[in-house]
């Protein structure tokens, strides 16, 4: 891997907005602008704007596109119709996770896979290796595609001013292709914050004008640019997994609580199906759970989880102070015996065992 950080087309915008930049999965990204809490609350209460151009986009085209995607992903791609999106996984033969991603169906022979920034190279070699024998054309469009996420209860109001289409008619996990501020774009009602909102994709050269237009139209609604810091606390409150923290090549899809996107009954077998079926039949050994810290302290990634007798029963995969709930929350893998809600556990915070309790999750759910 190169030491030079990659930049998105919006890098200069972030710096001029006073962002603090950090290296994240090989990218130079804004971690915060006005402050993490301020940005977090803006997204929950009004609207926030995120540069997520580091995410990857692979185009899958051709007569075998559907069959190919069915063979490498766990969700049932044939259930998608034009203009619809679903969350899914690429899995290894062992049932562990290559990446989590979204699939967009443009038409029956034309799809997009939207993958995590840190996994673009790994995923690209994975999909190309598995493409043998399929009549498809694969294109890595990541470098030429920018993505801006506008998230929060006022996201629709702000974005509506830049598009002709009535956005109230675009349901959750649907998208369309059309102009945004006179620029060709893909408008998708999706996000990683637990709020209503959109993810808008455009060609890299138009990212700056689109970013500025959204900030401009959002000004009267209190829009705030938001960084990776707020993105992480928002997704954690909504119990969304982060690849590299909560899920990775060592965690299987079922123990990660992602069985809802593993469709054993779809027609074609997929990579990892047999292993996942066996895991399902044998039962889980550990499970990814949500917990609240009831004692004094904050759980962090990698801290051990113990039972009442002090024996280690798991590990924290994500942990933070929750700005919305004003308490310490987290997720982690625990032995199944301790995975039921209301189970008392302890987080080993430096030299101290701090009391915590398994909860159902998500920690936050927006009012619909």
């Amino acid at each position: 891997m190169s030491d030079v950080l990659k930049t998105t087309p919006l890098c200069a915008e972030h710096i001029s907005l006073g962002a603090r930049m950090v290296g994240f999965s090989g990218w130079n990204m804004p971690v915060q602008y006005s402050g993490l809490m301020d940005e977090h609350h803006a997204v929950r209460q009004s609207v926030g704007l995120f540069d997520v151009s580091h995410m990857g986009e692979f185009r899958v085209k051709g007569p075998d596109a559907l069959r190919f995607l069915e063979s490498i992903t766990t969700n049932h791609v044939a259930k998608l119709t034009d203009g619809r999106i679903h969350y899914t996984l690429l899995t290894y033969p062992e049932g562990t996770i290559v990446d989590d991603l979204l699939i967009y169906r443009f038409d029956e022979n034309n799809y997009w896979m939207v993958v995590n920034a840190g996994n673009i190279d790994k995923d690209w070699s994975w999909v190309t290796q598995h493409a043998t024998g399929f009549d498809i054309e694969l294109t890595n469009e990541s470098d030429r595609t920018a993505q801006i996420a506008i998230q929060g209860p006022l996201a629709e109001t702000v974005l509506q001013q830049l598009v002709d289409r009535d956005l109230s008619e675009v349901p959750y996990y649907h998208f369309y292709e059309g102009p945004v501020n006179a620029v060709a774009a893909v408008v998708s009602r999706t996000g990683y914050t637990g709020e209503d909102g959109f993810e808008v994709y455009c060609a890299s050269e138009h990212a700056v004008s689109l970013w500025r237009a959204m900030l401009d139209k959002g000004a009267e609604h209190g829009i705030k640019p938001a960084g990776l810091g707020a993105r992480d606390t928002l997704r954690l409150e909504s119990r969304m997994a982060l690849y590299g923290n909560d899920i990775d090549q060592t965690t299987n899809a079922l123990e990660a609580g992602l069985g809802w996107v593993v469709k054993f009954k779809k027609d074609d077998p997929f990579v990892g199906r047999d292993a996942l079926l066996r895991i399902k039949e044998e039962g889980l050994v550990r499970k990814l759970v949500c917990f609240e810290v009831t004692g004094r302290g904050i759980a962090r990634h990698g801290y051990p989880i113990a039972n009442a007798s002090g024996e280690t029963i798991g590990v924290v995969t994500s942990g933070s102070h929750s700005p919305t709930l004003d308490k310490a929350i987290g997720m982690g893998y625990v032995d199944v015996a301790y995975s039921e809600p209301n189970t008392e556990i302890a987080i080993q915070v430096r030299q101290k065992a701090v009391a915590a309790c398994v909860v159902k999750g998500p920690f936050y759910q927006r009012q619909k």
Partner: protein
Amino acid sequence: MYPSEYRYTKDHEWVKVEGDFAMIGITDHAQHQLGDIVFVELPEDGSTFSAGDEFGTVESVKAVAEVYMPITGEVTEINEDLEERPELVNERPHDDGWLIRVRITDPSELDELMDAEAYESFVEEESK
């Protein structure tokens, strides 16, 4: 920005001497680097630490920072307001956001620390 009567460490703590005692906190630069502070863990009254020992942690939403003793001393008081209002460290790092008060063991250790001017240049140099 940095009070001229205070002394400073390279780990971004400050010391304010009051007779035989000293107040200790983290600098404005340190709180700014950490971001929104949500949790402060401090030692018990009566504990003693040598210069350079870790005596507590200051946590923001995303980060954990250890704080180190600028001088040797015995803790005589901790800032109890921080339990309810850790954000004081962000808002008033050089006064209301203080962390601990100690009885100074060896006043000569203070000579090892930076004055405000030296600390300001140190921060500038560090952020280059």
